[in-house]
């Protein structure tokens, strides 16, 4: 049994068609880009990439997302259009987390764990230049890619801050809050060379504690009629339903439908005999054999 299969063994009880899941994990995920409509149009990027020999396909549930087929995706980061900020190389799952936030022009949005900005820049695009997005990222090292991407995509209404998420000031309140938490990253292990990384129990414990703290602060920065999305790129229930459940109960949050028509599995309503708060089935679990992208967890919530 490979290290990867061994690592995922414990998920057999809730990941459907487990063998298909393992087979999909070992395949590369399709390359995708999100067109930055702040600077160009989907048709223009489609036309341009096709003229340069890329094979491009649209996505039904996300009008900005294009799948790039064939053997050229590696070059997507070295085109002039990329340099000019006409698109962002983004996974389908990552775009789901941003779409689930239901951002409208004029909203004030906080992205508590922002670098490198794949979701922040999508949020800014959905804001259409109206309102605000605060891109918070405490890691100094990861600040440069975030700033570079915000500038490349031509975002005029972003403010970048460097607080630890759990210490983000509470004096401003936001219509939408995204907590795309630091996690064990299992969902990103895809492709023929995929193998488990950073899997120690003590690391997971530290991550979970951090996730709880950041999510709690995220909840505290929500405006009374605000909404929050919590997401991770991991399958581990400890970092997902188990982080959200107790805080949703403590703050009397309602779990909302994301309204996205995609092939996702429901959130786990019970973990090791413990019942999760009502509505947990509305969370999205994205598995690569059902939704061909990174593995992800996405949940949308609001105050009752």
């Amino acid at each position, binding site marked *: 049994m490979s290290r990867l299969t061994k690592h995922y063994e414990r998920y057999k009880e809730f990941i459907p068609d487990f063998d298909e899941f393992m087979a999909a994990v070992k395949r590369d995920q399709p390359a995708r880009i999100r067109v930055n409509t702040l600077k160009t149009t989907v048709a223009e990027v489609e036309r341009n990439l096709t003229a340069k020999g890329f094979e491009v396909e649209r996505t039904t549930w996300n009008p900005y997302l294009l799948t790039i087929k064939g053997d050229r995706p590696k070059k997507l980061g070295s085109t002039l259009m990329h340099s000019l900020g006409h698109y962002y190389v983004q996974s389908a799952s990552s775009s789901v987390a941003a779409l689930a936030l239901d951002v409208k022009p004029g909203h004030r949005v906080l992205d508590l764990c922002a670098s490198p900005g794949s979701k922040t820049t999508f949020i800014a695009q959905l804001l259409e230049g109206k309102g605000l997005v605060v891109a918070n990222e405490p890691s100094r090292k990861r600040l440069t890619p975030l700033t570079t991407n915000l500038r490349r995509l031509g*975002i005029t209404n972003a*403010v970048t*801050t460097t607080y630890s998420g759990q210490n983000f*000031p509470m004096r401003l309140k936001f219509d939408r809050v995204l907590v795309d938490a630091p996690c064990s990253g299992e969902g990103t292990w895809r492709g023929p060379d995929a193998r488990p990384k950073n899997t120690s129990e003590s690391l997971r414990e530290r991550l979970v504690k951090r996730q709880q703290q950041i999510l709690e602060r995220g909840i505290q920065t929500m405006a009374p009629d605000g909404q929050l999305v919590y997401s991770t790129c991991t399958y581990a229930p400890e970092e997902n339903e188990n982080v959200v459940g107790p805080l949703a109960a403590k703050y009397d949050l309602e779990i909302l439908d994301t309204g996205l028509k995609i092939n996702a599995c429901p959130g786990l309503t019970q973990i090791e005999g413990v019942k999760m708060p009502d509505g947990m089935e509305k969370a999205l679990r994205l598995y690569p054999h059902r939704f061909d992208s990174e593995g992800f967890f996405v949940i949308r919530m609001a105050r009752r």
Partner: protein
Amino acid sequence: MSFVWLDDKESAKVEDYFVERFGMDREKFADFAMFQKGDYINILALDAREAAQELDPSDAGLPLAKLTHSKTLKPVTRGVQVFCNEATSNVVEIEPADLKGLIEGRSVESGDLKGFVILKMGGCAVGVGLAREGRLLSQFPKAMTHHLDLRNGGEIL
């Protein structure tokens, strides 16, 4: 590095530069605030100003211009790409082949123009050039161009 907010008079001076040199409409800047950070003048949507003032930001909005040693302004690529699509004077329309040449360090003919110019491709502002003695020099930041694939049969990908 702290942000020093420009008051209306100071912002108007920056706007004057873009209006006078590049023939831009002042209205373009109506919904924005400006601040100085180091040598750069940044531009930020008014909707985002309160947050930038209430929080302790490391960055905000886009760099629009740089203050030179002689306290004149130099337009900055990322701001130009958003704000200068409608520039009408001191504009040079280039082809992808010119762009490749500029990035590789070759100059392009600039006619009678002198000083900073807006480079447009297909009508869209892509960057800034410096016209001097009939030649145009690239002012593209390396960070924006170093990863471009220039091998694709001589054309930029």
